[in-house]
């Protein structure tokens, strides 16, 4: 039977490409002010499909503000933010919902709903957006829980009964509930032990490889920056100071970038990590 009529309903996918790579998220000339304090000024940034973008910056440089602006939680005074080629400011509610379905967010402290179990937390976006039979929803939620490396017994636990690392994983499971195209991670490895953090990074890289997930990761963890991030952007002076690969960061002469990537702490991590990358 015919498939033609359904193919016509194909939504316009993001068409913008550059060097043959699709731009999933682009910010142009974004300015955010709180009263008289300007936090971001004329900031521009592109995120390509299937990459892990690591976002760093000094404390108070506005990383969280930018993330919240992209998510629409903070009003911007100027500029445009496009996701999947659509200007977020011009969307009506229905279109906005379709974009929301394609993004997932992991907040810094998890932001799990404390009155719901882990399983119910993962099901919140599913219940909200798609029409699934109850049994399938249970099974898919359990799948997400196991995919992020939680034991299945954790499914019936409440957030208050989980450790910090488990909360992060459960929050990631909720962010991935709808198999989004892009996930925003706010300091995903902070508060995790190094082994847990490395596992988490591995998990994110695996998601990118299997599902073509695009990841926007705010992080201070040099290990994650060096091992899983395809590109790094540095926020400073109210804009993106530099962006590029780890090698670009190492060459940069910006003082903050220099001290971050070539400081005493960084040297201990960068060299072995670079060697590891060469080996593989």
């Amino acid at each position, binding site marked *: 039977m015919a498939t033609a009529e359904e193919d016509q309903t194909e939504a316009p996918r993001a068409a913008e490409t550059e060097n043959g790579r699709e731009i999933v998220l682009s910010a142009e000339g974004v300015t955010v002010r709180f009263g008289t304090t300007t936090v971001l000024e004329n900031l521009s940034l592109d995120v390509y499909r299937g990459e892990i973008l690591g976002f760093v910056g000094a404390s108070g440089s506005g990383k969280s503000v930018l993330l919240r602006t992209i998510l629409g939680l903070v009003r911007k005074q100027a500029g445009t933010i496009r996701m999947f080629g659509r200007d977020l400011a011009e969307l009506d509610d229905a279109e906005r919902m379709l974009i929301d379905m394609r993004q997932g967010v992991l907040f810094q402290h998890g932001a799990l709903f*404390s009155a719901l179990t882990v399983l119910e937390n993962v099901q919140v976006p599913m219940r909200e957006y798609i*029409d699934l039979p109850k049994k399938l929803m249970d*099974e898919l939620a359990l799948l997400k829980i196991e995919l992020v490396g939680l034991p*299945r017994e954790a499914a*019936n636990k409440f957030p208050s009964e989980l450790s910090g690392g488990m909360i992060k994983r459960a929050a990631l499971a909720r962010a991935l509930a709808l*198999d989004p195209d892009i996930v925003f991670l706010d300091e995903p490895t902070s508060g995790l032990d190094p082994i847990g953090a490395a596992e988490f990074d591995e998990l994110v890289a695996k998601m990118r490889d299997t599902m073509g997930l695009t990841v926007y990761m705010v992080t201070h963890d040099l290990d994650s920056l060096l091992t899983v991030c395809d590109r790094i952007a540095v926020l400073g002076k109210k804009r993106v100071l530099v962006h590029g690969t780890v090698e670009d960061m190492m060459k940069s002469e910006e003082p903050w970038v220099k001290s971050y990537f070539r400081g005493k702490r960084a040297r201990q991590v960068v060299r072995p990590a670079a060697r590891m990358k060469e080996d593989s």
Partner: protein
Amino acid sequence: MLFKASRLSGGSAALPGASLPRVELQEEDGFITYRLSGDWTTRTAGVIDRHMRDLLKKEAKRVHIDLGDVRQLDTAGAWLVARLVFEQRRRGAEVELTGESEAARILLDAVAPTAEQPDIPRKTHSDGWISRALAAVGRSVYDIRDDLLYGFHILGATISGAQMKLGRRNSVNPAAIASQIDRMGVGAVPIIVLMSAIVGAIIAQQGAFQLRYFGAEIFVVDLVGILILRELGVLMTAIMIAGRSGSAITAEIGSMKMREEVDALTVIGLNPVGVLVFPRLVALVVALPCLTIVANGAALGGAMLIAWWYSGIPPSAFIDRLRGAIDLTSIFAGLIKAPFMAMIIGIIASVEGMKVGGSAESLGRRVTASVVKAIFIVIVVDGLFAIFYAAIDF
């Protein structure tokens, strides 16, 4: 057989841009070929789920699953496929997958463990209803005991005035107490005045109407004076404060408990009861009698106006009559109760605050419990006082 998926579920309207998942099935004596096509994603999984569940029961010797025409596959789609593969293998069929991309293979491997064991672990079996009911009774008896014990602990700690575990022994922070008196006492004055004046007016009006039949309208002054001063002034104030300040105390202590601030106090060497509960309790014990006096004044004022309005009793006559009707014991019979009620409200609110667990829901439950218990016990205690006063002829 061609499977028309869109008939099965109404969910497809919300999926612009998605082509629905389909399964094409070829069956030849024990050899089944499944040809999958379309988008196999979380958004479309609901459409095909029932059909895939039916396919699980098919018996076959050999199964061939062709993923060549699948446009999109995510974890949910991969899980549906992996469940089919596992179930067919369990039924003894040879399963062969073809046409899957490299990414799909990794995805299928990743979801396999869950697909092989899709049931959510349930909590251990529940008991019968009799033992559940008995357990509930037992638990609430223990809860009451714990509440009482903790209440006495707080009372004891307050009386000994313990601020520090060590160091500046018995020191009290007057600034904290003053600020609590300001919030719980001064802040409550407008609402207490308004409420008491209205209650006083209503009693005066109704009393006047009833006493008019006997030509004894002037006795409304006796009625109002004694009722307000002995009972209603303090009772209404206590109920208002239980709702206004008791809930605030529970919420404040409870949210501090949730964010481990109470634990931080303990570790720093401060006694949480001394730091958090003591100032609030002292403030309540000071504020409630003062508010009661205010409430008494407001209620008598309201009654006086109404007596003038409806019964033509001028204020001078009202005051004259009032002087004969009440004496100092009437005033103290009410006022003595105020500090006890303040203690009850404060202790119940603190105990409930300390019992808050990790979730927002438990905070809400504790605040409700705090107000309900405080009002209930305040009314019971008022009744006990009435019996006691009658017995000693006060």
